[in-house]
Protein backbone atom coordinates (compact mmCIF):
# COMPACT_ATOMS: atom_id res chain seq x y z
CA UNK A 1 0.00 0.00 0.00
CA UNK A 2 1.28 3.41 -0.98
CA UNK A 3 1.86 5.55 2.06
CA UNK A 4 0.25 8.98 2.07
CA UNK A 5 2.49 11.91 1.47
CA UNK A 6 1.07 13.74 4.48
CA UNK A 7 1.24 12.21 7.94
CA UNK A 8 -0.56 15.12 9.58
CA UNK A 9 -3.39 17.04 7.95
CA UNK A 10 -5.23 19.69 9.93
CA UNK A 11 -8.10 21.92 8.84
CA UNK A 12 -9.62 24.79 10.80
CA UNK A 13 -8.62 23.28 14.12
CA UNK A 14 -9.85 25.34 17.09
CA UNK A 15 -9.75 24.87 20.84
CA UNK A 16 -11.55 27.16 23.24
CA UNK A 17 -11.40 27.13 27.04
CA UNK A 18 -14.44 29.20 28.05
CA UNK A 19 -14.00 32.58 26.37
CA UNK A 20 -10.33 32.00 25.69
CA UNK A 21 -9.42 30.71 22.25
CA UNK A 22 -6.15 28.89 22.74
CA UNK A 23 -5.91 27.61 19.18
CA UNK A 24 -7.69 29.70 16.58
CA UNK A 25 -8.62 28.06 13.28
CA UNK A 26 -5.27 26.59 12.23
CA UNK A 27 -4.76 24.71 8.96
CA UNK A 28 -1.54 22.97 7.97
CA UNK A 29 -0.05 19.66 6.99
CA UNK A 30 3.15 17.78 7.69
CA UNK A 31 4.91 15.65 5.07
CA UNK A 32 6.21 12.21 5.76
CA UNK A 33 9.84 12.17 6.81
CA UNK A 34 10.29 15.88 7.45
CA UNK A 35 11.20 17.80 10.57
CA UNK A 36 8.36 20.17 11.17
CA UNK A 37 9.09 23.04 13.55
CA UNK A 38 6.11 24.37 15.44
CA UNK A 39 7.27 27.75 16.70
CA UNK A 40 5.70 30.40 18.84
CA UNK A 41 6.09 32.40 22.00
CA UNK A 42 5.08 30.93 25.36
CA UNK A 43 1.31 30.92 25.49
CA UNK A 44 0.86 31.08 21.72
CA UNK A 45 -1.03 27.78 21.75
CA UNK A 46 1.67 25.34 20.63
CA UNK A 47 1.19 22.83 23.39
CA UNK A 48 -2.60 22.94 23.14
CA UNK A 49 -2.43 22.26 19.41
CA UNK A 50 -0.04 19.39 19.98
CA UNK A 51 -2.24 17.92 22.70
CA UNK A 52 -5.11 17.79 20.22
CA UNK A 53 -2.95 16.04 17.64
CA UNK A 54 -1.74 13.45 20.16
CA UNK A 55 -5.22 12.64 21.42
CA UNK A 56 -4.83 14.20 24.85
CA UNK A 57 -7.28 16.99 24.18
CA UNK A 58 -10.53 17.15 22.22
CA UNK A 59 -10.86 19.88 19.56
CA UNK A 60 -13.68 22.41 19.90
CA UNK A 61 -14.08 22.49 16.12
CA UNK A 62 -12.20 21.64 12.96
CA UNK A 63 -10.82 18.36 11.71
CA UNK A 64 -7.46 16.66 11.71
CA UNK A 65 -5.84 13.41 10.68
CA UNK A 66 -2.67 12.02 12.18
CA UNK A 67 -1.08 8.95 10.60
CA UNK A 68 -4.30 8.59 8.64
CA UNK A 69 -6.59 8.51 11.67
CA UNK A 70 -9.21 11.05 12.72
CA UNK A 71 -8.20 12.97 15.84
CA UNK A 72 -11.82 13.15 17.00
CA UNK A 73 -12.89 9.55 16.69
CA UNK A 74 -9.72 7.48 16.41
CA UNK A 75 -7.43 8.96 19.01
CA UNK A 76 -6.63 5.53 20.47
CA UNK A 77 -5.45 4.33 17.04
CA UNK A 78 -3.34 7.44 16.60
CA UNK A 79 -1.62 6.67 19.88
CA UNK A 80 -0.27 3.38 18.53
CA UNK A 81 1.50 5.19 15.70
CA UNK A 82 3.03 8.15 17.46
CA UNK A 83 5.65 8.82 20.07
CA UNK A 84 5.44 11.72 22.46
CA UNK A 85 7.92 13.54 24.61
CA UNK A 86 6.39 16.09 26.91
CA UNK A 87 8.03 19.36 27.94
CA UNK A 88 7.69 18.16 31.51
CA UNK A 89 10.05 15.24 31.96
CA UNK A 90 7.68 12.30 32.23
CA UNK A 91 9.56 9.08 32.78
CA UNK A 92 9.31 7.21 36.08
CA UNK A 93 12.10 8.73 38.15
CA UNK A 94 12.09 5.93 40.70
CA UNK A 95 12.61 3.28 38.03
CA UNK A 96 15.90 2.57 36.27
CA UNK A 97 16.61 3.55 32.68
CA UNK A 98 16.16 -0.05 31.63
CA UNK A 99 12.87 -0.45 33.56
CA UNK A 100 11.43 2.64 31.89
CA UNK A 101 12.43 1.43 28.46
CA UNK A 102 11.06 -2.06 29.06
CA UNK A 103 7.79 -0.62 30.34
CA UNK A 104 7.16 1.59 27.33
CA UNK A 105 8.39 -0.99 24.86
CA UNK A 106 5.93 -3.36 26.51
CA UNK A 107 2.90 -1.12 26.42
CA UNK A 108 3.55 -0.17 22.80
CA UNK A 109 3.66 -3.85 21.94
CA UNK A 110 7.30 -4.14 20.86
CA UNK A 111 7.87 -7.91 20.38
CA UNK A 112 9.48 -9.37 23.47
CA UNK A 113 12.51 -10.84 21.78
CA UNK A 114 13.34 -7.45 20.24
CA UNK A 115 13.04 -5.37 23.41
CA UNK A 116 16.51 -6.07 24.75
CA UNK A 117 18.37 -5.48 21.50
CA UNK A 118 16.45 -2.29 20.88
CA UNK A 119 17.21 -0.96 24.36
CA UNK A 120 20.89 -1.81 23.99
CA UNK A 121 20.99 -0.17 20.56
CA UNK A 122 19.32 3.02 21.79
CA UNK A 123 21.52 3.30 24.88
CA UNK A 124 24.58 2.65 22.79
CA UNK A 125 23.59 5.47 20.46
CA UNK A 126 23.29 7.77 23.48
CA UNK A 127 26.58 6.45 24.93
CA UNK A 128 24.65 5.83 28.11
CA UNK A 129 24.95 2.05 28.32
CA UNK A 130 26.72 2.40 31.67
CA UNK A 131 23.63 4.05 33.15
CA UNK A 132 21.30 1.22 32.17
CA UNK A 133 20.54 0.30 35.77
CA UNK A 134 20.65 3.77 37.34
CA UNK A 135 17.42 5.29 38.62
CA UNK A 136 16.38 7.94 36.12
CA UNK A 137 15.93 10.59 38.80
CA UNK A 138 19.67 10.56 39.58
CA UNK A 139 20.72 11.52 36.05
CA UNK A 140 21.47 15.06 34.81
CA UNK A 141 18.72 16.89 32.91
CA UNK A 142 20.38 16.61 29.49
CA UNK A 143 20.68 12.83 29.82
CA UNK A 144 17.12 12.49 31.01
CA UNK A 145 15.88 14.28 27.92
CA UNK A 146 17.89 12.04 25.63
CA UNK A 147 16.48 9.00 27.37
CA UNK A 148 12.96 10.38 27.19
CA UNK A 149 13.45 10.84 23.45
CA UNK A 150 14.68 7.28 23.05
CA UNK A 151 11.66 6.03 24.95
CA UNK A 152 9.40 8.07 22.66
CA UNK A 153 10.80 6.31 19.57
CA UNK A 154 11.34 2.85 21.07
CA UNK A 155 8.37 1.44 19.15
CA UNK A 156 9.48 3.03 15.84
CA UNK A 157 6.46 5.33 15.51
CA UNK A 158 5.49 7.09 12.29
CA UNK A 159 5.62 10.47 13.97
CA UNK A 160 7.33 11.64 17.10
CA UNK A 161 5.92 14.70 18.83
CA UNK A 162 8.49 16.65 20.82
CA UNK A 163 7.13 19.39 23.05
CA UNK A 164 9.97 21.80 23.81
CA UNK A 165 12.38 18.90 24.12
CA UNK A 166 15.46 21.01 24.80
CA UNK A 167 14.14 23.23 27.59
CA UNK A 168 16.65 23.99 30.32
CA UNK A 169 19.79 22.44 28.86
CA UNK A 170 23.01 24.01 27.62
CA UNK A 171 23.69 24.73 23.90
CA UNK A 172 26.05 21.77 23.50
CA UNK A 173 23.44 19.37 24.85
CA UNK A 174 20.81 20.95 22.59
CA UNK A 175 23.07 20.41 19.60
CA UNK A 176 23.50 16.74 20.56
CA UNK A 177 19.78 16.37 21.00
CA UNK A 178 19.14 17.61 17.47
CA UNK A 179 21.57 15.03 16.17
CA UNK A 180 19.34 12.40 17.77
CA UNK A 181 16.34 13.86 15.98
CA UNK A 182 18.20 13.69 12.65
CA UNK A 183 19.11 10.07 13.27
CA UNK A 184 15.48 9.23 14.00
CA UNK A 185 14.35 11.03 10.83
CA UNK A 186 16.92 9.07 8.84
CA UNK A 187 15.14 5.94 10.00
CA UNK A 188 11.91 7.24 8.51
CA UNK A 189 10.28 8.85 11.54
CA UNK A 190 8.59 12.21 11.03
CA UNK A 191 9.46 14.74 13.74
CA UNK A 192 7.00 17.37 14.94
CA UNK A 193 8.90 19.73 17.25
CA UNK A 194 7.67 22.68 19.25
CA UNK A 195 10.25 25.13 20.46
CA UNK A 196 10.70 28.74 21.33
CA UNK A 197 14.43 28.67 20.59
CA UNK A 198 14.50 30.42 17.21
CA UNK A 199 17.99 29.14 16.38
CA UNK A 200 16.63 25.59 16.46
CA UNK A 201 14.17 26.51 13.74
CA UNK A 202 17.04 26.54 11.29
CA UNK A 203 17.38 22.76 11.77
CA UNK A 204 13.83 22.14 10.54
CA UNK A 205 12.68 21.41 6.99
CA UNK A 206 9.64 23.60 7.41
CA UNK A 207 8.39 25.75 10.24
CA UNK A 208 5.13 27.30 11.26
CA UNK A 209 4.94 30.40 13.42
CA UNK A 210 2.12 30.65 15.90
CA UNK A 211 0.98 34.00 17.25
CA UNK A 212 -2.08 34.34 19.48
CA UNK A 213 -3.33 30.88 18.57
CA UNK A 214 -3.10 31.45 14.80
CA UNK A 215 -0.49 30.23 12.34
CA UNK A 216 0.81 33.44 10.78
CA UNK A 217 3.52 31.94 8.61
CA UNK A 218 4.45 28.50 7.30
CA UNK A 219 7.33 27.69 4.99
CA UNK A 220 10.93 26.54 4.90
CA UNK A 221 13.30 28.65 7.02
CA UNK A 222 15.06 30.00 3.91
CA UNK A 223 11.84 31.08 2.18
CA UNK A 224 10.55 32.74 5.33
CA UNK A 225 13.71 34.76 5.75
CA UNK A 226 13.51 35.84 2.13
CA UNK A 227 9.84 36.72 2.33
CA UNK A 228 10.27 38.92 5.40
CA UNK A 229 13.66 40.24 4.36
CA UNK A 230 15.21 39.00 7.57
CA UNK A 231 18.64 37.60 8.24
CA UNK A 232 17.49 35.06 10.83
CA UNK A 233 14.36 33.26 11.94
CA UNK A 234 14.51 35.22 15.16
CA UNK A 235 14.05 38.39 13.15
CA UNK A 236 11.12 36.90 11.24
CA UNK A 237 9.59 36.01 14.54
CA UNK A 238 10.07 39.52 15.90
CA UNK A 239 8.28 40.96 12.88
CA UNK A 240 5.36 38.58 13.29
CA UNK A 241 5.20 38.81 17.07
CA UNK A 242 4.98 42.60 17.06
CA UNK A 243 1.25 42.28 16.49
CA UNK A 244 0.78 39.79 19.32
CA UNK A 245 -1.71 40.60 22.04
CA UNK A 246 -0.90 37.74 24.34
CA UNK A 247 2.29 37.85 26.29
CA UNK A 248 3.51 36.10 29.38
Amino acid at each position, binding site marked *: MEKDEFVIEVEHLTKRFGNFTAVDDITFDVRRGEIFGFLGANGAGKTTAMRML*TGLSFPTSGTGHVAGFDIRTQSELIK*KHIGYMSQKFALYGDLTVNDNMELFAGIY*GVPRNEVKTRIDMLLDRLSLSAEKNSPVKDLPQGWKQKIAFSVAIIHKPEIVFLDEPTGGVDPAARRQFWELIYEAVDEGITAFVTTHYMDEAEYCNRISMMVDGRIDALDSPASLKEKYGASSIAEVFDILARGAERSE
Partner: protein
Amino acid sequence: MGAFGYLMIKEAKQFFGNPFMPMVLILLPLLLMLVVPLAANMEVRDVRVTVVDRDRSVLSAELTDRIFESGYFVPASYEDTYDAAMDELGRGNTDIIVEIPEGMERTVGRGGNAEIFIAANAVNSTKGSIGGGYLSSIVTSFSEGISGAGNSLPLKVVPQFKYNPHIEYKLFMVPALMIVVIVLVGGFFPTLSIVTEKEKGTIEQINVSPVRKRDFIFSKVVFYGILGIFAFTISFLIAHFVYGLASNGGLLEIYVSAMIFLVFMAGFGLIISNYSDTLLQSVFMMFFFVLVFMLMSGIFTPVSSMETWSQYVTYCLPTRYFVNILRAVCLKGSSFADLQFDFIMLSVFAAVINAVAVITYRKQS
Protein backbone atom coordinates in the same frame (compact mmCIF):
# COMPACT_ATOMS: atom_id res chain seq x y z
CA MET B 1 1.81 -10.28 28.12
CA GLY B 2 -0.30 -7.21 27.43
CA ALA B 3 0.02 -3.66 28.67
CA PHE B 4 -1.69 -4.71 31.90
CA GLY B 5 1.15 -7.11 32.73
CA TYR B 6 3.82 -4.49 32.09
CA LEU B 7 1.96 -1.98 34.23
CA MET B 8 1.68 -4.48 37.08
CA ILE B 9 5.43 -5.12 36.92
CA LYS B 10 5.98 -1.38 36.95
CA GLU B 11 3.79 -0.93 40.05
CA ALA B 12 5.66 -3.71 41.83
CA LYS B 13 9.06 -2.29 40.93
CA GLN B 14 8.03 1.15 42.11
CA PHE B 15 6.51 -0.12 45.36
CA PHE B 16 9.26 -2.53 46.35
CA GLY B 17 12.02 -0.26 45.04
CA ASN B 18 11.04 2.21 47.70
CA PRO B 19 12.51 1.11 51.04
CA PHE B 20 9.78 2.84 53.00
CA MET B 21 6.55 1.51 51.50
CA PRO B 22 6.92 -2.26 52.13
CA MET B 23 7.71 -1.46 55.75
CA VAL B 24 4.56 0.63 56.06
CA LEU B 25 2.56 -2.23 54.58
CA ILE B 26 3.67 -4.61 57.34
CA LEU B 27 3.92 -2.24 60.29
CA LEU B 28 0.58 -0.59 59.67
CA PRO B 29 -1.61 -3.62 60.40
CA LEU B 30 0.75 -4.84 63.13
CA LEU B 31 0.71 -1.63 65.13
CA LEU B 32 -2.92 -0.86 64.46
CA MET B 33 -4.06 -4.29 65.58
CA LEU B 34 -1.71 -4.82 68.50
CA VAL B 35 -1.41 -1.40 70.06
CA VAL B 36 -4.60 0.50 69.34
CA PRO B 37 -7.01 -1.95 71.03
CA LEU B 38 -5.02 -1.58 74.24
CA ALA B 39 -5.15 2.20 74.16
CA ALA B 40 -8.46 2.96 72.49
CA ASN B 41 -10.27 0.87 75.01
CA MET B 42 -13.55 2.02 76.41
CA GLU B 43 -13.68 -0.74 78.95
CA VAL B 44 -14.38 0.42 82.45
CA ARG B 45 -13.29 -1.14 85.69
CA ASP B 46 -13.81 -0.35 89.35
CA VAL B 47 -17.17 1.29 88.82
CA ARG B 48 -18.51 2.26 92.24
CA VAL B 49 -21.95 0.91 92.92
CA THR B 50 -24.41 1.81 95.66
CA VAL B 51 -26.97 -0.87 96.39
CA VAL B 52 -30.41 0.01 97.70
CA ASP B 53 -31.71 -3.37 98.72
CA ARG B 54 -35.35 -2.92 99.69
CA ASP B 55 -36.09 -6.61 99.43
CA ARG B 56 -33.49 -7.91 101.88
CA SER B 57 -34.03 -11.48 100.75
CA VAL B 58 -31.76 -14.39 99.87
CA LEU B 59 -32.32 -13.67 96.20
CA SER B 60 -31.40 -10.00 96.50
CA ALA B 61 -28.23 -10.90 98.40
CA GLU B 62 -27.30 -13.34 95.63
CA LEU B 63 -27.83 -10.71 93.00
CA THR B 64 -25.66 -8.26 94.90
CA ASP B 65 -22.92 -10.83 95.23
CA ARG B 66 -23.11 -11.56 91.54
CA ILE B 67 -22.61 -7.90 90.69
CA PHE B 68 -19.48 -7.53 92.78
CA GLU B 69 -18.06 -10.88 91.73
CA SER B 70 -17.85 -9.67 88.15
CA GLY B 71 -14.74 -7.64 88.85
CA TYR B 72 -16.06 -4.54 87.15
CA PHE B 73 -17.75 -3.08 90.21
CA VAL B 74 -16.74 -2.16 93.74
CA PRO B 75 -19.25 -1.50 96.48
CA ALA B 76 -19.48 2.16 97.40
CA SER B 77 -22.15 1.90 100.09
CA TYR B 78 -25.40 0.21 101.01
CA GLU B 79 -28.33 2.58 101.55
CA ASP B 80 -31.83 2.05 102.83
CA THR B 81 -33.56 4.58 100.62
CA TYR B 82 -33.19 5.74 97.08
CA ASP B 83 -32.95 9.35 98.23
CA ALA B 84 -29.97 8.59 100.45
CA ALA B 85 -28.28 6.85 97.51
CA MET B 86 -29.01 9.86 95.28
CA ASP B 87 -27.25 12.07 97.81
CA GLU B 88 -24.19 9.85 97.52
CA LEU B 89 -24.39 10.06 93.73
CA GLY B 90 -24.72 13.82 93.96
CA ARG B 91 -21.63 14.09 96.15
CA GLY B 92 -19.74 11.98 93.62
CA ASN B 93 -19.09 9.12 96.00
CA THR B 94 -20.68 6.58 93.73
CA ASP B 95 -21.19 6.00 89.96
CA ILE B 96 -24.22 3.77 89.72
CA ILE B 97 -27.23 3.05 91.93
CA VAL B 98 -28.91 -0.33 91.82
CA GLU B 99 -32.32 -0.43 93.43
CA ILE B 100 -33.84 -3.81 94.17
CA PRO B 101 -37.61 -3.42 94.68
CA GLU B 102 -39.42 -4.59 97.77
CA GLY B 103 -40.93 -8.04 97.40
CA MET B 104 -38.72 -9.08 94.48
CA GLU B 105 -38.18 -12.57 95.79
CA ARG B 106 -41.86 -13.11 96.41
CA THR B 107 -42.85 -11.77 92.99
CA VAL B 108 -40.32 -13.90 91.21
CA GLY B 109 -41.33 -16.90 93.31
CA ARG B 110 -44.92 -16.47 92.14
CA GLY B 111 -43.67 -16.36 88.56
CA GLY B 112 -44.16 -12.62 88.17
CA ASN B 113 -41.80 -9.94 86.92
CA ALA B 114 -39.78 -7.54 88.97
CA GLU B 115 -37.98 -4.46 87.70
CA ILE B 116 -34.46 -3.70 88.79
CA PHE B 117 -33.81 0.01 88.68
CA ILE B 118 -30.39 1.25 87.58
CA ALA B 119 -29.37 4.89 87.76
CA ALA B 120 -26.01 5.84 86.33
CA ASN B 121 -24.12 9.05 86.80
CA ALA B 122 -23.57 10.13 83.24
CA VAL B 123 -21.13 12.93 83.98
CA ASN B 124 -18.41 10.52 82.99
CA SER B 125 -20.55 9.12 80.23
CA THR B 126 -18.26 6.24 79.39
CA LYS B 127 -18.11 4.98 82.93
CA GLY B 128 -21.79 5.57 83.51
CA SER B 129 -23.26 4.19 80.33
CA ILE B 130 -20.89 1.32 79.77
CA GLY B 131 -20.96 0.45 83.45
CA GLY B 132 -24.76 0.57 83.27
CA GLY B 133 -24.66 -1.72 80.27
CA TYR B 134 -22.45 -4.21 82.06
CA LEU B 135 -24.74 -4.15 85.05
CA SER B 136 -27.76 -4.82 82.88
CA SER B 137 -26.19 -7.84 81.36
CA ILE B 138 -25.14 -9.19 84.76
CA VAL B 139 -28.69 -8.86 85.99
CA THR B 140 -29.95 -10.55 82.86
CA SER B 141 -27.69 -13.53 83.21
CA PHE B 142 -28.60 -13.77 86.88
CA SER B 143 -32.20 -13.68 85.84
CA GLU B 144 -31.63 -16.49 83.36
CA GLY B 145 -30.00 -18.45 86.13
CA ILE B 146 -33.07 -18.44 88.33
CA SER B 147 -35.67 -19.02 85.66
CA GLY B 148 -33.85 -21.76 83.78
CA ALA B 149 -33.20 -21.74 80.08
CA GLY B 150 -36.10 -21.16 77.77
CA ASN B 151 -38.45 -19.59 80.30
CA SER B 152 -39.35 -15.92 80.34
CA LEU B 153 -37.01 -13.90 82.44
CA PRO B 154 -38.37 -12.77 85.77
CA LEU B 155 -36.04 -9.80 86.11
CA LYS B 156 -36.35 -7.17 83.40
CA VAL B 157 -33.46 -5.16 82.05
CA VAL B 158 -32.47 -4.50 78.50
CA PRO B 159 -29.51 -6.66 77.50
CA GLN B 160 -26.97 -4.76 75.41
CA PHE B 161 -23.95 -6.98 74.95
CA LYS B 162 -25.70 -10.09 73.93
CA TYR B 163 -22.96 -11.50 71.68
CA ASN B 164 -19.97 -10.31 73.56
CA PRO B 165 -20.29 -12.56 76.60
CA HIS B 166 -17.09 -11.37 78.18
CA ILE B 167 -18.31 -7.84 77.64
CA GLU B 168 -14.97 -6.83 76.26
CA TYR B 169 -14.75 -3.61 74.36
CA LYS B 170 -11.71 -4.95 72.49
CA LEU B 171 -13.89 -7.39 70.64
CA PHE B 172 -15.96 -4.49 69.46
CA MET B 173 -12.86 -2.55 68.38
CA VAL B 174 -10.91 -5.24 66.53
CA PRO B 175 -13.24 -5.70 63.53
CA ALA B 176 -13.34 -1.91 63.22
CA LEU B 177 -9.56 -1.77 63.04
CA MET B 178 -9.51 -4.46 60.37
CA ILE B 179 -11.64 -2.12 58.31
CA VAL B 180 -9.26 0.76 58.94
CA VAL B 181 -6.41 -1.37 57.55
CA ILE B 182 -8.31 -1.93 54.30
CA VAL B 183 -9.30 1.72 54.05
CA LEU B 184 -5.69 2.81 54.39
CA VAL B 185 -4.03 0.24 52.16
CA GLY B 186 -6.80 -0.31 49.63
CA GLY B 187 -8.03 3.27 49.48
CA PHE B 188 -5.16 5.61 50.19
CA PHE B 189 -2.33 3.73 48.45
CA PRO B 190 -3.78 3.64 44.93
CA THR B 191 -5.14 7.17 45.19
CA LEU B 192 -1.81 8.60 46.23
CA SER B 193 -0.06 6.59 43.57
CA ILE B 194 -2.30 7.93 40.79
CA VAL B 195 -2.16 11.53 41.97
CA THR B 196 1.63 11.27 42.23
CA GLU B 197 1.65 10.26 38.57
CA LYS B 198 -0.45 13.33 37.82
CA GLU B 199 1.87 15.62 39.75
CA LYS B 200 5.00 14.22 38.13
CA GLY B 201 3.43 14.21 34.66
CA THR B 202 4.01 10.51 34.07
CA ILE B 203 0.28 9.94 33.62
CA GLU B 204 0.46 12.08 30.50
CA GLN B 205 3.06 9.77 29.03
CA ILE B 206 0.64 6.91 29.69
CA ASN B 207 -2.37 8.82 28.34
CA VAL B 208 -0.59 9.49 25.07
CA SER B 209 0.21 5.79 24.71
CA PRO B 210 -2.22 3.16 23.46
CA VAL B 211 -2.73 1.80 27.00
CA ARG B 212 -6.45 1.31 27.53
CA LYS B 213 -7.74 3.24 30.46
CA ARG B 214 -9.11 0.12 32.05
CA ASP B 215 -5.67 -1.49 31.93
CA PHE B 216 -4.12 1.47 33.68
CA ILE B 217 -6.86 1.61 36.32
CA PHE B 218 -6.95 -2.15 36.86
CA SER B 219 -3.19 -2.28 37.26
CA LYS B 220 -3.55 0.04 40.25
CA VAL B 221 -6.67 -1.63 41.63
CA VAL B 222 -5.34 -5.16 41.31
CA PHE B 223 -1.85 -4.40 42.60
CA TYR B 224 -2.98 -2.45 45.64
CA GLY B 225 -5.85 -4.91 46.08
CA ILE B 226 -3.31 -7.70 46.51
CA LEU B 227 -1.39 -5.58 49.02
CA GLY B 228 -4.69 -4.82 50.77
CA ILE B 229 -5.49 -8.53 51.12
CA PHE B 230 -1.97 -9.11 52.42
CA ALA B 231 -2.34 -6.41 55.09
CA PHE B 232 -5.84 -7.63 55.89
CA THR B 233 -4.49 -11.15 56.34
CA ILE B 234 -1.96 -9.89 58.87
CA SER B 235 -4.71 -8.13 60.80
CA PHE B 236 -7.01 -11.14 60.55
CA LEU B 237 -4.33 -13.45 61.91
CA ILE B 238 -3.82 -11.08 64.83
CA ALA B 239 -7.58 -10.87 65.41
CA HIS B 240 -7.79 -14.64 65.43
CA PHE B 241 -4.74 -15.63 67.41
CA VAL B 242 -4.34 -12.67 69.72
CA TYR B 243 -7.96 -11.73 70.33
CA GLY B 244 -9.60 -15.08 69.64
CA LEU B 245 -12.03 -13.74 67.06
CA ALA B 246 -13.73 -15.80 64.39
CA SER B 247 -13.24 -18.96 66.39
CA ASN B 248 -16.43 -20.27 64.81
CA GLY B 249 -14.98 -20.26 61.29
CA GLY B 250 -16.38 -18.04 58.58
CA LEU B 251 -13.08 -17.48 56.80
CA LEU B 252 -14.77 -17.45 53.41
CA GLU B 253 -17.37 -14.89 54.48
CA ILE B 254 -14.67 -12.65 55.92
CA TYR B 255 -12.46 -12.77 52.83
CA VAL B 256 -15.26 -12.36 50.33
CA SER B 257 -16.57 -9.31 52.16
CA ALA B 258 -13.04 -7.91 52.53
CA MET B 259 -12.47 -8.26 48.80
CA ILE B 260 -15.75 -6.58 47.90
CA PHE B 261 -14.92 -3.75 50.26
CA LEU B 262 -11.39 -3.46 48.81
CA VAL B 263 -12.90 -3.10 45.35
CA PHE B 264 -15.19 -0.40 46.71
CA MET B 265 -12.32 1.51 48.34
CA ALA B 266 -10.16 1.29 45.22
CA GLY B 267 -12.99 2.64 43.06
CA PHE B 268 -13.64 5.36 45.57
CA GLY B 269 -9.97 6.31 45.61
CA LEU B 270 -9.97 6.47 41.82
CA ILE B 271 -12.84 8.93 41.80
CA ILE B 272 -10.97 11.11 44.27
CA SER B 273 -7.85 10.95 42.11
CA ASN B 274 -9.86 11.78 38.99
CA TYR B 275 -10.93 15.01 40.61
CA SER B 276 -7.69 16.04 42.30
CA ASP B 277 -4.64 17.53 40.67
CA THR B 278 -2.36 17.58 43.69
CA LEU B 279 -1.50 15.16 46.46
CA LEU B 280 -2.60 17.66 49.07
CA GLN B 281 -6.03 17.97 47.54
CA SER B 282 -6.51 14.22 47.30
CA VAL B 283 -5.34 13.59 50.85
CA PHE B 284 -7.78 16.12 52.25
CA MET B 285 -10.66 14.76 50.21
CA MET B 286 -9.84 11.21 51.23
CA PHE B 287 -9.62 12.15 54.88
CA PHE B 288 -12.96 13.89 54.80
CA PHE B 289 -14.79 10.93 53.33
CA VAL B 290 -12.86 8.33 55.29
CA LEU B 291 -13.74 10.06 58.56
CA VAL B 292 -17.39 10.03 57.55
CA PHE B 293 -17.13 6.36 56.58
CA MET B 294 -15.58 5.54 59.92
CA LEU B 295 -17.33 7.75 62.40
CA MET B 296 -20.85 7.74 61.01
CA SER B 297 -21.29 4.13 60.05
CA GLY B 298 -21.20 2.43 63.41
CA ILE B 299 -17.68 1.11 63.17
CA PHE B 300 -16.63 2.58 66.48
CA THR B 301 -19.97 3.41 68.06
CA PRO B 302 -23.17 1.36 68.05
CA VAL B 303 -25.65 2.46 65.38
CA SER B 304 -28.48 1.92 67.84
CA SER B 305 -27.25 4.75 70.04
CA MET B 306 -27.17 7.29 67.20
CA GLU B 307 -29.69 10.00 66.47
CA THR B 308 -32.51 8.70 64.31
CA TRP B 309 -31.53 10.76 61.24
CA SER B 310 -27.94 9.61 61.43
CA GLN B 311 -29.08 6.03 61.74
CA TYR B 312 -30.58 6.48 58.27
CA VAL B 313 -27.30 7.97 57.05
CA THR B 314 -25.52 4.74 57.97
CA TYR B 315 -27.48 2.94 55.26
CA CYS B 316 -25.67 5.13 52.72
CA LEU B 317 -22.23 4.09 53.95
CA PRO B 318 -20.70 0.82 52.76
CA THR B 319 -18.69 0.51 55.96
CA ARG B 320 -21.95 -0.13 57.81
CA TYR B 321 -22.51 -3.35 55.86
CA PHE B 322 -18.91 -4.44 56.02
CA VAL B 323 -18.66 -3.99 59.77
CA ASN B 324 -21.98 -5.79 60.19
CA ILE B 325 -20.59 -8.74 58.30
CA LEU B 326 -17.28 -8.75 60.15
CA ARG B 327 -18.88 -8.50 63.60
CA ALA B 328 -21.56 -11.04 62.84
CA VAL B 329 -19.06 -13.54 61.46
CA CYS B 330 -16.35 -12.91 64.05
CA LEU B 331 -18.58 -12.79 67.12
CA LYS B 332 -21.69 -14.75 66.20
CA GLY B 333 -20.34 -17.12 63.57
CA SER B 334 -22.95 -16.02 61.01
CA SER B 335 -22.80 -17.26 57.42
CA PHE B 336 -23.75 -15.95 53.96
CA ALA B 337 -27.37 -16.96 54.43
CA ASP B 338 -27.74 -14.73 57.51
CA LEU B 339 -26.02 -11.78 55.89
CA GLN B 340 -27.51 -11.69 52.41
CA PHE B 341 -28.68 -8.11 52.72
CA ASP B 342 -25.29 -6.85 53.84
CA PHE B 343 -23.44 -8.71 51.10
CA ILE B 344 -25.83 -7.46 48.43
CA MET B 345 -25.60 -3.86 49.60
CA LEU B 346 -21.81 -3.99 49.82
CA SER B 347 -21.62 -5.38 46.28
CA VAL B 348 -23.99 -2.73 44.97
CA PHE B 349 -21.79 0.00 46.44
CA ALA B 350 -18.65 -1.55 44.94
CA ALA B 351 -20.21 -1.91 41.49
CA VAL B 352 -21.69 1.58 41.34
CA ILE B 353 -18.61 3.37 42.61
CA ASN B 354 -16.34 1.57 40.14
CA ALA B 355 -18.65 2.33 37.24
CA VAL B 356 -18.47 6.00 38.19
CA ALA B 357 -14.67 5.77 38.52
CA VAL B 358 -14.20 4.36 35.03
CA ILE B 359 -16.61 6.89 33.51
CA THR B 360 -14.95 9.87 35.18
CA TYR B 361 -11.39 8.85 34.23
CA ARG B 362 -10.58 10.53 30.94
CA LYS B 363 -7.54 10.18 28.79
CA GLN B 364 -8.69 13.02 26.55
CA SER B 365 -9.76 16.41 27.91
